[in-house]
Protein backbone atom coordinates (compact mmCIF):
# COMPACT_ATOMS: atom_id res chain seq x y z
CA UNK A 1 0.00 0.00 0.00
CA UNK A 2 1.36 3.45 -0.90
CA UNK A 3 1.78 6.02 1.89
CA UNK A 4 -1.10 8.10 0.63
CA UNK A 5 -3.51 5.18 0.50
CA UNK A 6 -2.33 4.15 3.95
CA UNK A 7 -3.00 7.58 5.44
CA UNK A 8 -6.38 7.70 3.74
CA UNK A 9 -7.28 4.36 5.33
CA UNK A 10 -6.05 5.53 8.74
CA UNK A 11 -8.29 8.57 8.41
CA UNK A 12 -11.37 6.65 7.20
CA UNK A 13 -11.08 3.86 9.73
CA UNK A 14 -11.03 6.41 12.56
CA UNK A 15 -14.16 8.37 11.62
CA UNK A 16 -17.75 7.23 12.18
CA UNK A 17 -18.58 8.13 8.59
CA UNK A 18 -17.19 5.02 6.90
CA UNK A 19 -19.01 2.47 9.05
CA UNK A 20 -22.22 4.45 8.98
CA UNK A 21 -22.13 4.34 5.17
CA UNK A 22 -21.25 0.62 5.16
CA UNK A 23 -24.21 -0.14 7.46
CA UNK A 24 -26.72 1.87 5.41
CA UNK A 25 -25.31 0.55 2.12
CA UNK A 26 -25.53 -3.06 3.25
CA UNK A 27 -29.14 -2.51 4.32
CA UNK A 28 -30.15 -0.86 1.04
CA UNK A 29 -28.71 -3.78 -0.95
CA UNK A 30 -30.21 -6.39 1.39
CA UNK A 31 -33.62 -4.73 1.24
CA UNK A 32 -33.52 -4.78 -2.57
CA UNK A 33 -32.53 -8.46 -2.56
CA UNK A 34 -35.43 -9.21 -0.20
CA UNK A 35 -37.80 -7.35 -2.51
CA UNK A 36 -36.49 -9.21 -5.56
CA UNK A 37 -37.32 -12.51 -3.84
CA UNK A 38 -40.80 -11.18 -2.98
CA UNK A 39 -39.99 -10.93 0.73
CA UNK A 40 -39.29 -14.64 0.98
CA UNK A 41 -38.78 -15.35 4.72
CA UNK A 42 -35.34 -16.87 4.04
CA UNK A 43 -34.20 -13.58 2.43
CA UNK A 44 -34.25 -11.64 5.69
CA UNK A 45 -32.72 -8.16 5.23
CA UNK A 46 -31.07 -8.17 8.67
CA UNK A 47 -29.50 -11.57 8.07
CA UNK A 48 -28.10 -10.53 4.67
CA UNK A 49 -26.80 -7.18 6.00
CA UNK A 50 -25.09 -8.79 8.98
CA UNK A 51 -23.29 -11.31 6.76
CA UNK A 52 -22.25 -8.52 4.35
CA UNK A 53 -20.97 -6.16 7.06
CA UNK A 54 -19.31 -9.09 8.87
CA UNK A 55 -17.40 -9.98 5.70
CA UNK A 56 -16.27 -6.34 5.24
CA UNK A 57 -15.03 -6.24 8.84
CA UNK A 58 -13.22 -9.55 8.38
CA UNK A 59 -11.64 -8.47 5.07
CA UNK A 60 -10.44 -5.12 6.51
CA UNK A 61 -9.48 -6.64 9.88
CA UNK A 62 -11.67 -4.11 11.67
CA UNK A 63 -12.67 -4.89 15.24
CA UNK A 64 -16.31 -4.69 16.31
CA UNK A 65 -15.79 -1.77 18.77
CA UNK A 66 -14.27 0.31 15.94
CA UNK A 67 -17.23 -0.55 13.69
CA UNK A 68 -19.72 0.24 16.43
CA UNK A 69 -18.21 3.72 16.97
CA UNK A 70 -19.72 4.58 13.58
CA UNK A 71 -22.81 2.35 13.61
CA UNK A 72 -23.93 3.51 17.07
CA UNK A 73 -25.82 6.40 15.50
CA UNK A 74 -28.12 3.92 13.78
CA UNK A 75 -28.25 1.79 16.93
CA UNK A 76 -29.41 4.77 19.00
CA UNK A 77 -32.63 5.03 16.96
CA UNK A 78 -33.85 1.70 18.37
CA UNK A 79 -34.94 3.52 21.53
CA UNK A 80 -37.15 6.13 19.83
CA UNK A 81 -38.46 3.40 17.49
CA UNK A 82 -39.61 1.38 20.50
CA UNK A 83 -41.39 4.44 21.88
CA UNK A 84 -43.00 4.91 18.46
CA UNK A 85 -44.65 1.46 18.73
CA UNK A 86 -47.30 3.34 20.71
CA UNK A 87 -48.54 4.87 17.44
CA UNK A 88 -49.91 1.67 15.75
CA UNK A 89 -51.09 0.42 19.16
CA UNK A 90 -53.13 3.59 19.69
CA UNK A 91 -54.47 3.53 16.14
CA UNK A 92 -55.93 0.03 16.59
CA UNK A 93 -57.29 0.61 20.08
CA UNK A 94 -60.94 -0.14 19.15
CA UNK A 95 -60.26 -3.58 17.62
CA UNK A 96 -57.88 -4.27 20.47
CA UNK A 97 -60.43 -3.40 23.16
CA UNK A 98 -63.05 -5.66 21.54
CA UNK A 99 -60.72 -8.67 21.74
CA UNK A 100 -59.23 -7.72 25.09
CA UNK A 101 -60.11 -10.91 27.04
CA UNK A 102 -58.62 -13.54 24.68
CA UNK A 103 -55.65 -11.24 24.07
CA UNK A 104 -54.72 -10.79 27.71
CA UNK A 105 -54.98 -14.53 28.47
CA UNK A 106 -53.10 -15.59 25.31
CA UNK A 107 -50.51 -12.89 26.00
CA UNK A 108 -49.61 -14.08 29.49
CA UNK A 109 -49.78 -17.81 28.59
CA UNK A 110 -47.79 -17.33 25.36
CA UNK A 111 -45.21 -15.05 26.93
CA UNK A 112 -44.43 -17.49 29.74
CA UNK A 113 -44.42 -20.43 27.27
CA UNK A 114 -41.86 -18.65 25.07
CA UNK A 115 -39.45 -18.09 27.97
CA UNK A 116 -39.90 -21.46 29.71
CA UNK A 117 -39.69 -23.59 26.53
CA UNK A 118 -36.54 -21.87 25.23
CA UNK A 119 -34.68 -21.94 28.54
CA UNK A 120 -35.75 -25.54 29.33
CA UNK A 121 -34.54 -26.92 26.01
CA UNK A 122 -31.25 -24.99 26.25
CA UNK A 123 -30.76 -26.31 29.79
CA UNK A 124 -30.98 -29.87 28.43
CA UNK A 125 -27.93 -29.00 26.32
CA UNK A 126 -26.12 -27.91 29.49
CA UNK A 127 -25.67 -24.26 28.60
CA UNK A 128 -24.21 -21.84 31.16
CA UNK A 129 -26.43 -19.25 32.88
CA UNK A 130 -25.27 -16.15 30.91
CA UNK A 131 -26.30 -17.88 27.68
CA UNK A 132 -29.66 -18.92 29.16
CA UNK A 133 -30.29 -15.28 30.18
CA UNK A 134 -29.38 -14.09 26.69
CA UNK A 135 -31.74 -16.66 25.13
CA UNK A 136 -34.74 -16.05 27.42
CA UNK A 137 -36.11 -12.86 25.74
CA UNK A 138 -35.70 -14.25 22.20
CA UNK A 139 -39.37 -13.70 21.27
CA UNK A 140 -39.30 -9.99 22.16
CA UNK A 141 -38.61 -7.17 19.71
CA UNK A 142 -34.85 -6.49 19.64
CA UNK A 143 -34.56 -3.12 21.44
CA UNK A 144 -36.57 -4.42 24.39
CA UNK A 145 -35.04 -7.90 24.40
CA UNK A 146 -31.55 -6.46 24.44
CA UNK A 147 -32.56 -4.07 27.22
CA UNK A 148 -33.83 -7.01 29.30
CA UNK A 149 -30.64 -9.00 28.73
CA UNK A 150 -28.49 -6.01 29.63
CA UNK A 151 -30.39 -5.44 32.88
CA UNK A 152 -29.99 -9.10 33.88
CA UNK A 153 -26.28 -9.32 33.02
CA UNK A 154 -26.51 -11.38 29.82
CA UNK A 155 -24.86 -10.93 26.45
CA UNK A 156 -26.76 -8.35 24.35
CA UNK A 157 -24.97 -9.18 21.08
CA UNK A 158 -25.93 -12.85 21.45
CA UNK A 159 -29.51 -11.83 22.29
CA UNK A 160 -29.67 -9.69 19.14
CA UNK A 161 -28.68 -12.58 16.90
CA UNK A 162 -31.02 -15.06 18.68
CA UNK A 163 -33.93 -12.61 18.37
CA UNK A 164 -33.23 -12.21 14.67
CA UNK A 165 -33.09 -15.99 14.15
CA UNK A 166 -36.35 -16.46 16.12
CA UNK A 167 -38.03 -13.97 13.80
CA UNK A 168 -36.88 -15.82 10.71
CA UNK A 169 -37.80 -19.27 12.14
CA UNK A 170 -41.32 -18.13 13.14
CA UNK A 171 -41.96 -16.43 9.79
CA UNK A 172 -41.10 -19.59 7.89
CA UNK A 173 -43.11 -21.83 10.24
CA UNK A 174 -46.32 -19.91 10.86
CA UNK A 175 -48.37 -20.28 7.67
CA UNK A 176 -47.99 -24.07 7.15
CA UNK A 177 -48.40 -24.66 10.90
CA UNK A 178 -51.62 -22.60 11.23
CA UNK A 179 -53.07 -24.23 8.11
CA UNK A 180 -52.29 -27.69 9.50
CA UNK A 181 -54.06 -26.71 12.76
CA UNK A 182 -57.03 -25.44 10.68
CA UNK A 183 -56.93 -22.05 12.41
CA UNK A 184 -59.21 -19.61 10.60
CA UNK A 185 -59.31 -16.76 13.11
CA UNK A 186 -56.94 -14.17 11.60
CA UNK A 187 -56.73 -12.30 14.87
CA UNK A 188 -55.44 -15.42 16.63
CA UNK A 189 -53.02 -16.37 13.83
CA UNK A 190 -51.56 -12.88 13.76
CA UNK A 191 -51.42 -12.57 17.52
CA UNK A 192 -49.49 -15.85 17.82
CA UNK A 193 -46.81 -14.93 15.28
CA UNK A 194 -46.38 -11.40 16.65
CA UNK A 195 -45.94 -12.79 20.14
CA UNK A 196 -43.55 -15.59 19.14
CA UNK A 197 -41.57 -13.74 16.44
CA UNK A 198 -41.94 -9.96 17.08
CA UNK A 199 -41.39 -7.55 14.14
CA UNK A 200 -40.18 -10.08 11.58
CA UNK A 201 -43.24 -12.23 12.35
CA UNK A 202 -45.44 -9.12 12.13
CA UNK A 203 -44.07 -8.29 8.69
CA UNK A 204 -44.88 -11.84 7.61
CA UNK A 205 -48.43 -11.63 9.01
CA UNK A 206 -49.09 -8.43 7.02
CA UNK A 207 -48.08 -10.28 3.84
CA UNK A 208 -50.74 -12.94 4.51
CA UNK A 209 -53.70 -10.92 5.88
CA UNK A 210 -54.12 -7.32 7.03
CA UNK A 211 -56.10 -8.22 10.16
CA UNK A 212 -53.46 -10.80 11.10
CA UNK A 213 -50.80 -8.13 10.67
CA UNK A 214 -52.63 -5.68 12.91
CA UNK A 215 -52.92 -8.22 15.71
CA UNK A 216 -49.31 -9.31 15.24
CA UNK A 217 -48.19 -5.72 15.78
CA UNK A 218 -50.27 -5.48 18.94
CA UNK A 219 -48.91 -8.81 20.22
CA UNK A 220 -45.36 -7.63 19.56
CA UNK A 221 -45.89 -4.43 21.56
CA UNK A 222 -47.72 -6.10 24.44
CA UNK A 223 -45.31 -9.03 24.64
CA UNK A 224 -42.40 -6.61 24.92
CA UNK A 225 -44.07 -5.09 27.94
CA UNK A 226 -45.19 -8.34 29.61
CA UNK A 227 -41.87 -10.11 29.01
CA UNK A 228 -39.95 -7.16 30.46
CA UNK A 229 -42.08 -7.45 33.59
CA UNK A 230 -42.34 -11.26 33.88
CA UNK A 231 -38.96 -12.47 32.65
CA UNK A 232 -36.84 -11.64 35.74
CA UNK A 233 -39.36 -13.55 37.88
CA UNK A 234 -39.77 -16.56 35.55
CA UNK A 235 -36.01 -16.82 35.03
CA UNK A 236 -35.42 -16.77 38.78
CA UNK A 237 -37.81 -19.73 39.19
CA UNK A 238 -36.22 -21.61 36.27
CA UNK A 239 -32.59 -21.10 37.25
CA UNK A 240 -32.75 -21.51 41.04
Amino acid at each position, binding site marked *: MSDQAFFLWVYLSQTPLLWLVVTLGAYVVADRVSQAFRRHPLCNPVLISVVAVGLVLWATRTS*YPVYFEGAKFVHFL*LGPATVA*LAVPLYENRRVVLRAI*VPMVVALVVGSVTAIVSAVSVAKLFGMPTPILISLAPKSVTAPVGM*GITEALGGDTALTAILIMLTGVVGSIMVTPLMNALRMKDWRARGFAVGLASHGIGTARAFQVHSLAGTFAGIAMGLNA*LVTALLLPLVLKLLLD
Partner: protein
Amino acid sequence: MIISLTIILLCQLLGEVVARGFGWPVPGPVLGMLFLLAFLMLRDRIRRRVPEFGRALDSTGRGLLAHLSLLFIPASVGVVQRLDVLAEYGVGLIVALVVSTFVTLVVTVVTFVGVSRLSGSTMEAADDPTAGEKP
Protein backbone atom coordinates in the same frame (compact mmCIF):
# COMPACT_ATOMS: atom_id res chain seq x y z
CA MET B 1 -41.67 16.82 12.61
CA ILE B 2 -39.10 18.34 14.97
CA ILE B 3 -41.73 18.72 17.70
CA SER B 4 -42.86 15.10 17.21
CA LEU B 5 -39.28 13.87 17.44
CA THR B 6 -38.77 15.90 20.59
CA ILE B 7 -41.93 14.43 22.15
CA ILE B 8 -40.81 10.87 21.29
CA LEU B 9 -37.33 11.46 22.72
CA LEU B 10 -38.85 13.15 25.78
CA CYS B 11 -41.01 10.04 26.36
CA GLN B 12 -37.91 7.87 26.13
CA LEU B 13 -36.03 10.16 28.51
CA LEU B 14 -38.88 10.04 31.03
CA GLY B 15 -38.93 6.25 30.66
CA GLU B 16 -35.19 5.97 31.31
CA VAL B 17 -35.39 8.32 34.31
CA VAL B 18 -38.29 6.41 35.88
CA ALA B 19 -36.84 2.93 35.14
CA ARG B 20 -33.36 3.79 36.44
CA GLY B 21 -34.59 6.06 39.23
CA PHE B 22 -36.74 3.28 40.73
CA GLY B 23 -34.31 0.53 39.76
CA TRP B 24 -36.98 -1.34 37.74
CA PRO B 25 -35.83 -4.09 35.36
CA VAL B 26 -38.12 -2.63 32.64
CA PRO B 27 -36.23 -1.03 29.73
CA GLY B 28 -36.67 2.75 29.59
CA PRO B 29 -38.02 2.79 25.99
CA VAL B 30 -40.86 0.40 26.98
CA LEU B 31 -41.99 2.80 29.69
CA GLY B 32 -41.51 5.55 27.11
CA MET B 33 -43.97 3.69 24.86
CA LEU B 34 -46.56 3.84 27.65
CA PHE B 35 -45.90 7.57 28.13
CA LEU B 36 -46.41 8.15 24.41
CA LEU B 37 -49.63 6.09 24.52
CA ALA B 38 -50.89 8.30 27.36
CA PHE B 39 -49.82 11.38 25.42
CA LEU B 40 -51.71 10.23 22.31
CA MET B 41 -54.91 9.87 24.36
CA LEU B 42 -54.39 13.33 25.84
CA ARG B 43 -53.65 14.71 22.39
CA ASP B 44 -56.96 13.58 20.94
CA ARG B 45 -58.80 15.42 23.74
CA ILE B 46 -56.87 18.65 23.18
CA ARG B 47 -57.36 18.24 19.43
CA ARG B 48 -61.10 18.82 19.72
CA ARG B 49 -60.23 22.43 20.45
CA VAL B 50 -56.86 22.76 18.69
CA PRO B 51 -57.02 20.52 15.57
CA GLU B 52 -53.36 21.17 14.68
CA PHE B 53 -52.02 19.85 17.98
CA GLY B 54 -49.53 16.97 17.59
CA ARG B 55 -50.66 16.14 14.08
CA ALA B 56 -47.25 15.06 12.78
CA LEU B 57 -46.75 12.54 15.59
CA ASP B 58 -48.33 9.63 13.69
CA SER B 59 -46.27 10.17 10.55
CA THR B 60 -43.03 10.62 12.53
CA GLY B 61 -43.75 7.42 14.47
CA ARG B 62 -44.48 5.50 11.29
CA GLY B 63 -41.30 6.93 9.72
CA LEU B 64 -39.21 5.59 12.58
CA LEU B 65 -40.84 2.17 12.24
CA ALA B 66 -40.64 2.02 8.42
CA HIS B 67 -37.08 0.71 8.36
CA LEU B 68 -37.03 -1.07 11.68
CA SER B 69 -34.82 -3.83 10.21
CA LEU B 70 -32.00 -1.33 9.60
CA LEU B 71 -31.82 -0.45 13.29
CA PHE B 72 -31.06 -4.06 14.28
CA ILE B 73 -27.94 -4.30 12.12
CA PRO B 74 -25.27 -2.63 14.33
CA ALA B 75 -26.16 -4.80 17.33
CA SER B 76 -26.55 -7.97 15.25
CA VAL B 77 -23.11 -7.51 13.67
CA GLY B 78 -21.85 -8.02 17.25
CA VAL B 79 -22.20 -11.72 16.44
CA VAL B 80 -18.68 -11.51 14.94
CA GLN B 81 -17.49 -11.33 18.55
CA ARG B 82 -19.59 -14.37 19.49
CA LEU B 83 -18.61 -16.86 16.79
CA ASP B 84 -16.92 -18.96 19.48
CA VAL B 85 -20.18 -19.17 21.45
CA LEU B 86 -22.07 -20.18 18.30
CA ALA B 87 -19.44 -22.80 17.46
CA GLU B 88 -19.78 -24.28 20.95
CA TYR B 89 -23.54 -24.00 21.52
CA GLY B 90 -24.93 -23.36 18.02
CA VAL B 91 -26.76 -26.68 17.62
CA GLY B 92 -28.39 -26.47 21.05
CA LEU B 93 -29.39 -22.85 20.51
CA ILE B 94 -30.98 -23.59 17.12
CA VAL B 95 -32.88 -26.58 18.53
CA ALA B 96 -34.06 -24.44 21.47
CA LEU B 97 -35.20 -21.66 19.10
CA VAL B 98 -37.09 -23.98 16.71
CA VAL B 99 -38.79 -26.02 19.46
CA SER B 100 -39.67 -22.96 21.53
CA THR B 101 -41.06 -20.98 18.56
CA PHE B 102 -43.18 -23.98 17.48
CA VAL B 103 -44.58 -24.55 20.99
CA THR B 104 -45.20 -20.82 21.53
CA LEU B 105 -47.11 -20.46 18.24
CA VAL B 106 -49.34 -23.47 19.00
CA VAL B 107 -50.00 -22.60 22.66
CA THR B 108 -50.75 -18.93 21.88
CA VAL B 109 -53.13 -19.56 18.97
CA VAL B 110 -55.01 -22.32 20.82
CA THR B 111 -55.36 -20.15 23.95
CA PHE B 112 -56.57 -17.15 21.94
CA VAL B 113 -59.21 -19.16 20.04
CA GLY B 114 -60.31 -21.10 23.14
CA VAL B 115 -60.75 -18.01 25.32
CA SER B 116 -62.48 -16.02 22.58
CA ARG B 117 -65.06 -18.83 22.27
CA LEU B 118 -65.56 -19.02 26.04
CA SER B 119 -65.84 -15.25 26.44
CA GLY B 120 -68.09 -14.88 23.39
CA SER B 121 -65.69 -12.48 21.64
CA THR B 122 -65.25 -14.56 18.51
CA MET B 123 -64.26 -12.91 15.26
CA GLU B 124 -67.13 -10.68 14.21
CA ALA B 125 -67.80 -9.79 10.61
CA ALA B 126 -67.10 -6.15 11.48
CA ASP B 127 -63.59 -7.07 12.64
CA ASP B 128 -62.65 -8.64 9.32
CA PRO B 129 -62.34 -6.14 6.46
CA THR B 130 -62.20 -8.94 3.87
CA ALA B 131 -65.16 -10.94 5.24
CA GLY B 132 -67.37 -10.00 2.32
CA GLU B 133 -64.81 -11.14 -0.24
CA LYS B 134 -64.76 -14.76 0.86
CA PRO B 135 -66.77 -17.18 -1.28
